């Protein structure tokens, strides 16, 4: 009865009775996680915008035009975001290969790694979101002026990358839940 139940849900029990992966849902979720985090990392990694800003040095002189560049590595939160998303996409690729080719390693190890990716991704999303919001709104109390009125495209790209990465983080949460629910069903 137990094996029948397990087979219905696509759980492969090997000779040792070990619970493997192999579900279609898991493969789809891992591909999604890979694509989302990779695109988010690339999107922010190539983010660069140069704009001519006119600066008034003193009221007597005509305004001076200087090129100003915004790059992702000017802000450490963005660097952290790119690194975290790259790590998450590499882990997604490796675990996808493991899930497809090796019929799953240990379920517990997989869950543990996915769990760490959840924490990593969500902290990077939090950091990038906060810094992006500061750029978007500014903070008058601290004299931190908004910069998104100057670097419009740059800010939009940051926003898109954060949204994609948030989806990627949610996909990782679903992966943990999926694996844990399989364990619950069998135990």
């Amino acid at each position, binding site marked *: *009865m*137990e094996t029948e139940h397990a087979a219905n849900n696509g759980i492969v029990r090997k000779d*040792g*009775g*070990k*619970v493997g992966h192999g579900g279609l849902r898991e493969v789809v979720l891992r591909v999604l996680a890979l694509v989302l985090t990779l695109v988010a990392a690339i999107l922010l990694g190539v983010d660069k915008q140069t704009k001519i800003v006119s600066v008034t*040095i*003193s009221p007597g002189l005509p305004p001076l035009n200087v090129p100003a560049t*915004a790059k992702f590595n*000017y*802000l*450490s*939160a963005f660097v*952290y975001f790119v690194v975290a998303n790259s790590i998450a996409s590499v882990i997604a690729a490796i675990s996808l290969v493991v899930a497809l080719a090796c019929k799953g390693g*240990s*379920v*517990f*190890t997989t*869950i*543990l790694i996915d*769990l*760490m990716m*959840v*924490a*990593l991704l*969500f*902290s*990077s*999303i*939090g*950091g*990038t*979101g*906060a*810094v992006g919001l*500061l*750029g978007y709104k500014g*903070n*008058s*109390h*601290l*004299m*931190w*002026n908004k*910069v998104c009125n100057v670097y419009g495209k740059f800010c939009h790209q940051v926003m898109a990358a954060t949204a994609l990465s948030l989806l990627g*983080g949610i996909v990782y*949460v679903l992966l*943990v*839940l999926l*694996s*844990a*629910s399989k*364990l*619950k069903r*069998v*135990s």
Partner: protein
Amino acid sequence: MSSMETEKGAEQPAAVAAGSSNYSCIRADVGLRLLLLAASIVAVVLMVTSKQTKNIPVPTIPGLTIANPAKFDDSAALVKGNRFAELTIEICENIDVLGLYSIITTIASLAVMGKSSVPAKYFWILAVHDLLVLGLVAAATGTAGGVAYIGLQGNSHVNWGKICNVYDKFCRFIGSSIAVSLFAAVVLVLLVAINVYSLYRRTPGSSVW
């Protein structure tokens, strides 16, 4: 409930062969939850006591030129000096929620600790909720860390001046509470891990890893 019991009973022989049918880390679970509670209380106390108002003598700041207009003009700095807290209010609220959550789950864990066998469903429910709270706490830590780092270092590219040289005590408190909430996030990861591990050990034929 009764059907679950009978199913468990039918499964018992195979599980006993594996040697771990009723495996649970409930003691470690309760210990970690108490740790989580302590961490959230410390973080809340740090946040609440971190107010700092400072009188900033603007004209004496060296290097205050027209090109770099007043980083802290007098009135703004005096009246709204401690509004940095607004930026980190999110983490504060999250930590409050975390404290409440840890109290509730500690009580729940203590309630099941006395039982001889803890149902697998219990671990599943705890793992799901711990995972969601982990997402919240990690995001809050990232948010506060990202903003506090700018406060500490400043950013010359976007002309955001550092403020921690002025509000030193405040920044120390915020930094400590970020460290504590990072610790809380690690504890939450461990909590999800041990609950999932309890589930895992109950699967027939599971090895240690």
